[in-house]
Structure formats: structure tokens, C-alpha cells
């Protein structure tokens, strides 16, 4: 009995395997197969856009592979090391410099010149994230930036009628909200385990964050120290609690309870707040452009972009897929499915976006969004920014000490980059 059931099981497994193999071979129908990797939720729902593309391009079949966001970077690097990269992928904007530096990305200028995608239609900051050393290496798919979500009712109760436009007004508003809500609640949440709030405030200064072509940190600049001082003051005044995101139950509940009045976050939270807040609060919150030192200021241009990998032999077919997903009508449809914000201005003419009150602030903010410094080491530098910022608001460092410490850490991280740039410069000098 036992033996026979074992044999039966093996036979079933074998049959299954043969079936799978047959399934594979059946799909080989002469069409060009474009392998496409995308991350997270977007990677899941983009499958809905494939049928229309395959109808329009009968010679191409899209093979979609979804990557979990937390493992995507690692998987892409591993695939690069193992020579197993797909033809096209959507990667985080901040990863573009890194993959360009290791020579994985195909240049796109020549393809853009042939038309289809008009760079001028894109928000400048978003488009700029894909331009490395003057060459286009990535085309934005969806963009995000950070701006404050705020509780209109709390601000009104505190006597603030219009959302603040600059830092001075913002400080007045935070002070008023804090006075109104008392010692148990706060004016703003700036989670200490995120670098984004501080980084977005830093982008508003005229001084670049790195100097000498990304060779050294520029955090001792007057502008950055002004940002640090503003950030530190928010905590010192007691307007923001010194907590990480992991220490509150979750931002949606706490926002609903009025634990804080302002929260700097991205466009995905429009849908989240809409869904998770109780219905009697649906009118009580709104979005606003990020206040800058003197009037509405810049912010970080984030999101994901398409890249073609240099080793792919099917770049033409892959480009057709990118061009399709970049069409304004497809982008508007994609917004309908995911809530992601399109990077092209013309896609914003779609009624769903034009009439969305919460998206309007993002539309305005995206015009001012800027790319972070385009060095491969940037994510790590941003992490140090968070760590030093956390030490500073906990009183372990003054503003000036924090700026010096941040420069010291950044210069150490960029050591290898300096060595490589110097070597490249020497190599050019020595060549005949």
C-alpha cells in the first residue's frame, strides 16, 4: 500500500512537471517576450494594463514579475551580478544614479529624440531624477513628493484660518495648535525614524546638499543650518513629540484622534486617510503645499521610473512598453487603479485628477519638487541625515555640531567616489 501510494505521488508530480513544461512551450508563439519587473502594489495592478498593450502590439508579450518593495533593490543588484536582469524595470528614482554608475542602464536620449514621449510635458524635478551626467537614463512612471496633511478643524479651533505659506506662519500655526490641544497632544508629527521630513525641508534651501560634483557634503552651509535650526526648534518648543513611527499605534488612527495637526507625507495617504478616518472627519482634513523659508518651497521629487537595461537584446520592444505606459490616457487610467500621481502635466487634465481637492496641493507642489543629489551613495547619506537629526533633537548635538558631524560622515561615505572620480580624471589626462 505504502509503496504504491509513493509511486502514485511521484507519477502525479512528474505529470505536473510535464504539464508545466508543456505550458511553457505552448506560450512560445513567436512573439517577442519582454520581461518587466515592477515593485509592490504597482507591480501587481499593472497587469491590468497589459491586455490593451498586447492588442495594440500583437508581436510583443509582456512577462511581468512583481518584486516586494523591501527586497527589490537587493534582487536587482543580485540579478546584475548574476547577469539575469530583465529587459525593462520600474525602479525607485533614487536608485537610478547607482544603477547608472555600475553601467546597468541603457541611454535613452536617442529613443526620446524619435518622439512619443515629450520631456517638456513632465514635471521638471521628476524628469531630472532620471538625467545622470547630462544623459537620460530613466523615464518617470509615477511621481510622489511630500507635503503636509493637516487637520482643518484643529487649525480653525486654534484660530488659524488659512494654511501657512512660509516658515514664520507655520511656526505661528504650530504654536497656536499646541496651545489649543494642550500638553497631551501635539501640533505636528515628524517621525524620528524617517529622513523625509528633514530632507524635504533641506531641499528648500538654495545651497546644494553636496558640493564639488558630489565629492563632499555641504551640510555646513548657512541654508542647511537654517533648516536644522527650524527643525530642532519644532521639537524644543514641544510642538512635535520625539517619537518614531513604530511608537504610535498608527498615523491614521492618531491623525483621527487629533494627536497631531500636521503630518508630512506622500500622495498614497490621500486614499489611506480617505478610507481609514471616520466619516465625520472626511471634511476635517486637507493637504497643503509645503511651506518654505519665504513662501511655498521645494520638496523631494520621488517615485519610480522606467529603465532599460543595457544588456537586453529586446530594447525596442521594451521601449514600446515604456512609451505605452507613459501615454497620458494610460497614466490617467493607472491613477484610477492605484491613486499614484502621473508625472506628465497633460495626464492631470483627466477629470478624476483635476477635480480631486486633495491632489491639487500635490499638483502645485510637484512643480517645485527637485531631485536629490545624484550620487549612488545618496540613500546612505540620507540615512545619516536621519540619525544625526535624531541625535540633535534629543539634545545630544547642537545645530552646528550636527552640521559638522553630518559633513564628516558624508565625506567618509563619499571617499570611494572621490577616488574613482580622481582616477577617471587622471586616466583622461594620461590618454593621448
Amino acid at each position, binding site marked *: 500500500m505504502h509503496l504504491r501510494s509513493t509511486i502514485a505521488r511521484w507519477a502525479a508530480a512528474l505529470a505536473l512537471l510535464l504539464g508545466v513544461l508543456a505550458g511553457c512551450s505552448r506560450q512560445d508563439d513567436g512573439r517577442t517576450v519582454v520581461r518587466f519587473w515592477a515593485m509592490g502594489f504597482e507591480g501587481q495592478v499593472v497587469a491590468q494594463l497589459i491586455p490593451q498593450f498586447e492588442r495594440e502590439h500583437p508581436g510583443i508579450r509582456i512577462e511581468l514579475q512583481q518584486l516586494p518593495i523591501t527586497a527589490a533593490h*537587493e534582487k536587482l*543588484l543580485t540579478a*546584475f*551580478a548574476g547577469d539575469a536582469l530583465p529587459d525593462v524595470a520600474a525602479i525607485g528614482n533614487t536608485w537610478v544614479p*547607482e544603477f547608472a*554608475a*555600475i*553601467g*546597468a542602464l541603457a541611454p535613452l536620449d536617442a529613443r526620446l529624440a524619435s518622439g512619443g514621449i515629450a520631456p517638456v510635458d513632465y514635471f521638471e524635478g521628476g524628469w531630472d531624477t532620471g538625467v545622470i551626467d547630462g544623459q537620460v537614463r530613466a523615464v518617470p512612471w509615477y511621481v510622489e513628493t511630500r507635503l503636509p496633511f493637516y487637520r482643518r478643524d484643529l487649525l480653525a479651533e486654534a484660530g488659524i484660518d488659512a494654511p501657512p505659506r512660509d516658515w514664520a506662519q507655520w511656526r505661528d500655526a504650530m504654536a497656536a495648535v499646541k496651545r489649543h490641544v494642550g500638553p497631551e497632544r501635539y501640533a505636528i508629527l515628524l517621525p*524620528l*525614524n524617517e529622513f523625509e521630513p528633514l530632507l524635504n525641508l533641506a531641499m528648500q534651501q538654495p545651497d546644494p546638499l553636496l558640493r564639488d560634483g558630489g565629492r563632499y557634503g555641504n551640510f555646513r552651509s548657512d541654508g542647511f543650518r537654517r533648516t536644522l535650526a527650524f527643525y530642532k526648534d519644532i521639537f524644543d518648543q514641544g510642538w512635535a513629540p*520625539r*517619537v*518614531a513611527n*513604530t*511608537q504610535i*499605534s498608527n498615523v491614521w488612527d492618531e491623525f483621527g484622534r487629533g494627536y497631531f495637526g500636521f503630518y508630512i507625507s506622500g500622495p498614497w495617504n490621500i486614499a489611506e486617510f480617505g478610507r481609514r478616518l471616520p466619516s465625520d472627519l472626511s471634511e476635517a482634513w486637507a493637504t497643503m503645499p509645503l511651506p518654505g523659508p519665504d513662501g511655498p518651497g521645494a520638496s523631494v521629487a520621488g517615485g519610480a521610473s522606467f529603465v532599460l537595461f543595457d544588456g537586453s537584446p529586446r530594447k525596442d520592444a521594451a521601449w514600446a512598453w515604456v512609451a505605452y505606459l507613459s501615454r497620458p490616457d494610460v497614466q490617467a487610467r493607472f491613477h484610477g487603479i492605484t491613486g499614484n500621481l502621473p508625472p506628465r502635466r497633460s495626464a492631470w487634465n483627466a477629470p478624476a485628477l483635476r477635480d480631486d481637492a486633495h491632489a491639487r496641493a500635490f499638483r502645485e507642489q510637484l512643480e517645485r519638487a527637485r531631485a536629490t543629489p545624484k550620487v*549612488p551613495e545618496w540613500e*546612505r547619506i540620507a540615512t545619516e541625515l536621519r*540619525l544625526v537629526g*535624531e*541625535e540633535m533633537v*534629543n539634545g*545630544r548635538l547642537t545645530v552646528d555640531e550636527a552640521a559638522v558631524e553630518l559633513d564628516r560622515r558624508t565625506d567618509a561615505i563619499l571617499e*570611494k567616489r572621490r*577616488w*574613482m572620480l580622481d582616477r577617471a580624471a587622471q586616466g583622461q589626462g594620461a590618454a593621448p
Partner: protein
Amino acid sequence: MKPSTAGWLFAAPALAVIAVFFALPVLAALALSLTDFDIYALADIGNLRFVGLGNYLGLMRNPLFWQALGNTFYFVLVGVPLSIALSLAAALLLHSRLGVFKPFFRTAYFAPVVTTVVAVAVVWRYLFHTRYGLVNWVLAGIGIDPVDWLGDPDWAMPTIILFAVWKNFGYNMIIFLAGLQAIPEDLYEAARIDGASRWRQFLHVTLPMLGPVMLMVAILTLSGYFQLFAEPYVMTQGGPLQSTVSVLYLMYEEGFKWWNLGNASAVAFILFVIMATITYGLLWVARRKGAE
């Protein structure tokens, strides 16, 4: 054929496995730790620099490395004795003739060991929540002000230690229980006839007889606790103020987050040397005391 050759031949398969799966990777990691291998080198091996002991010297100058080392030692020095004491106490209770519902408690104490760290850590994060957590609610009931368990740099590591000890003590408890059951009853009988109290019996019969078991448990627990990673990774991500960054967590960030594999290998090697030294020292002490 000489007998020694035959011996080597018989041992050859096992030795080959050890060479391929242990010696070779260790040597490769050692070689890696002498270079600055990173993503640039991954792209083009020409970007690889031999840095000698540069990675090690860099770590010596890195305050975060010392903090991670300090955090790890804090965790080991408090956590290991606490864990062993708790395991032994639980084992004694379960072994005692006075105990009731022994199978139930044996299972209950062992249950945390087989749970998933991540799932349980999430539950603990709720228990130790500053404003909504059960722990602070109970403390408030007896008039103690709320403690910011995971948000205060002074409290985060003790909370992690509590969690790790609770999670792991059941495993050692089972080993101790086996050790206790192996102690012949007539030794206690003789001690009782000589008029030894319960405490004296424990000191002069139980503890010495548990010597070898104790040594094994100590070594296993030490090496496990030195590799602290999952608890801070899930509960605090190294924060607040990097008070829960362990050596292994540092290695993970260097290696798999930032792809500085040279640096990460150096961290791993230092941890390896520390663990080997301490284990050897423990064995040496045990040998002198004749416990082995």
C-alpha cells in the same frame, strides 16, 4: 596501506565537506575583509582596492561600532545570566515533586521557543506601547508612571532583553530538566541523612551535578545571544538613538543595505574572534574546575 592513511581516507568525505562549506567561505570572507568590495567593485573588479587592515582600523575609529559592541555586551552580560537563571528556576519548579499540572507548564514554558520571532515581536510591541500598552496600563494601576519602553534609549535594550529571555528560556529549561532527571536520587537521600537543608542540597548536589549541562547551556546561549539581530530588527530597527544596534545588525546594514561587503566581512570577523575567545575562555575555566 598504513593504518593512518586508511584513517584519513575514511575521514576524507567529512573533511571535504568541512573544507568546502566551512574553511573555504571563512577564508574567502577573510580575504574580502581586506578589500573595499562594494557595488562599484561588483560592476567592475578594477574598482576593487586592497586596503589591508583598513576596514578593521576604520571600525576601531567608528563610534557606532563601539556602541554596537557595547550594546551587544550589555545584551549578553545581562541576558545570558538572566536566561540561564530563569531556565534553571523553571526546570527546578517542573522537576519538583510538589509541582502540579507539570505537562501543561512544560508546554507553556516551551511554547515561546517555537513561535516566530517576527509575529511575537509585533505582539510585544503592542504590549509595551507607551500609551496603549498592557504593561503600562498595569503599571498605572499600581501608581507607576508610564515608561517609554521602546522609545527611551535607556529602556529599549532592557525591553529587548526581556523579550529575548522570555522567548528563549524554554529551550534551556528542557535541557536542564533532562540534566536534573539524570541526577541519582540517592545523592539527595544521602545529603538529607547528613542533615543538609534544601538550599544546601541545591548548592552541593544539584549545581555540581549539573556542571557539564551548565557549561553546554552557557556556551550555546552565549553564542546565540552574541548574534542578536532579529529582535532589534523587528522591534526597534536599531533605534532609538542607535541604542539597540547590535554587532550583527551593524554587519547586516553594512553588507546588505549598503553593499560594503568588505566592511561587513571585517565586522563578522571581529565578532567571530570575540565569540571564539570567550567560548575558549569558558572551556578553559570549566576544565580547570573539572566540570568537563
